[in-house]
């Protein structure tokens, strides 16, 4: 490369033909190429999987030690083995999966409804100034209102059935999803909007081709939060409102445990609620979010 640079005679410059330039460029590209590699599986296991497993084990050990030390009465703190017996009992009776499915199916369906309502709502608030001025503040205010507050009016208006459950889920999740989308749209670099405009992506085409994909990271964060809010609202509703029509979900299981003074059942319900919430996040939302961020080069490896 140095030799071609120094022979800058006029003739040579003219003959510095397409091929020379192509070779030069190929060299530059090779030197500049950004290497993208993925972490090996073993490293993922050691760095990402091992620490939480150790943490859970520690909690179990501390719990067992507290039982041995008899820090409190039996009925206040069940031992890990008592809770485990509760699990195997429920499994043997075939009711365990039923509890989980009752709540999860409700939660996911409610979440999907919230998605269908929250997405266009968020888009409207983000893109239409009047709408934003009118309901933007209310929408973010609703996020700080615990959706359990909606349970009493929902019971009175809609009665003790699934409709009321879904209403409470929607009131919890729709603001999160809409606000996530608004935040995502607000964070779009103006340059991308201008580039879209010069390419002819205006109006609805601009929304579809530029605004929606560009706001995806913020939107996904909103979905994650929306799921957490859905699940929480549902549990609150299930604990407060029990009726034979509603079946037994995890919330009702917890309430049953309290009524029958079975602390191990209460613990079982709490653990199941926690595990389901984490599992949905780990199985659906986190992979989705990681995939989006990685494909955009936004995931910094450490």
């Amino acid at each position: 490369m140095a030799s071609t640079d120094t022979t800058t005679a006029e003739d040579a410059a003219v003959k510095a033909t397409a091929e020379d330039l192509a070779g030069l460029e190929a060299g530059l590209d090779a030197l500049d190429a950004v290497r993208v590699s993925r972490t090996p599986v073993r490293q993922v296991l050691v760095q990402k999987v091992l620490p939480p497993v150790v943490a859970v084990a520690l909690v179990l050990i501390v719990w067992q030690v507290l039982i041995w030390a008899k820090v409190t009465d039996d009925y206040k703190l069940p031992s890990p083995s008592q809770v485990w017996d509760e699990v195997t009992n429920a499994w043997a009776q075939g009711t365990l999966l039923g509890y989980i499915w009752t709540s999860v199916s409700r939660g996911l369906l409610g979440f999907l409804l919230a998605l269908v309502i929250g997405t266009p709502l968020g888009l409207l608030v983000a893109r239409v100034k009047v709408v934003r001025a009118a309901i933007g503040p209310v929408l973010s205010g609703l996020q700080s209102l615990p959706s359990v507050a909606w349970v009493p009016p929902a019971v009175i208006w809609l009665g003790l059935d699934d409709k009321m459950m879904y209403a409470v889920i929607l009131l919890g999740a729709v603001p999160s999803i809409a606000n996530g989308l608004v935040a995502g749209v607000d964070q779009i670099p103006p340059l991308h909007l201008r580039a879209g405009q010069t390419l002819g992506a205006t109006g609805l085409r601009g929304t579809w081709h530029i605004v929606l994909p560009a706001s995806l990271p913020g939107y996904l964060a909103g979905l994650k939060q929306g799921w957490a809010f859905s699940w929480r609202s549902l549990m609150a509703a299930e604990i407060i409102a029990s009726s034979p029509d509603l079946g037994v979900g995890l919330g009702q299981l917890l309430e049953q445990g309290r009524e029958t003074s079975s602390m191990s059942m209460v613990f079982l319900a709490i653990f199941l609620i926690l595990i389901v919430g984490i599992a949905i996040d780990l199985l659906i939302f986190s992979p989705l979010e990681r995939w989006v961020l990685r494909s955009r080069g936004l995931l910094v490896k450490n």
Partner: protein
Amino acid sequence: MATTTLTKAEDRTAVGHAARIDHVSKSFGGPEGQQLVLDDITLDVAPGEFVTLLGASGCGKSTLLNLVAGLDRPTAGSIETPGGRPALMFQEHALFPWLTAGKNIELALRLRGVPKSDRRQEAERLLELVRLGGAYGKRVHELSGGMRQRVAMARALAQDSQLLLMDEPFAALDAITRDVLHDELTRIWRETNVSVLFVTHNVREAVRLAQRVVLLSSRPGRIAREWTVDIDQPRRIEDTAVAELSVEITEQLRGEIRRHGQH
């Protein structure tokens, strides 16, 4: 070489123009009232012509480019671009990170109305044109700065506009890459016969690339002077002729800047 310049000059009167900027002024409202940014700019870009707009900070060169691109409206005067919506390249690549290099180009084709069946092939052809044949499936973050600007160039060309506007597209690149992209741009310009209006604050770059260099004064931006660059392409930024003209233009540019320190 002299002959090519001549034919271009004839073209200008015969075939019309790729852009006609006619007595354009632009002011922006600010806290201290209206501020005049561009003052009575009149400039034609002939079909197939390469014009650079040169000026110091505050000359409104980017504002002018936005006006020609149709992203903003002039306060007075008119702008015609008979070849349709001009393509625009920015200092940052402005590629969409959620699409691959190839899909970025295909989006431009789709918005232009190219049928789905032809898009892939056309995108591959444009990538070949900027010598990135293997980059179709690459994500934006996997490309180097120079490669990104070349994909951006391919995407701009995908608009099939007769006018390509470039807003300091190489300013953020390292000197070696910039030099190569100058050669590349010259080659592509000659192959495609597109008209280019190229904004820069780099005098040598302006002379290296253009057939005509237009110098803007600052605050407000006015056309101070223009030069026809009568040097053979392919040129090099190190060429004596390029250097000589650059010195002359730089003197004038410094004169324009000095005036602002005097009041």
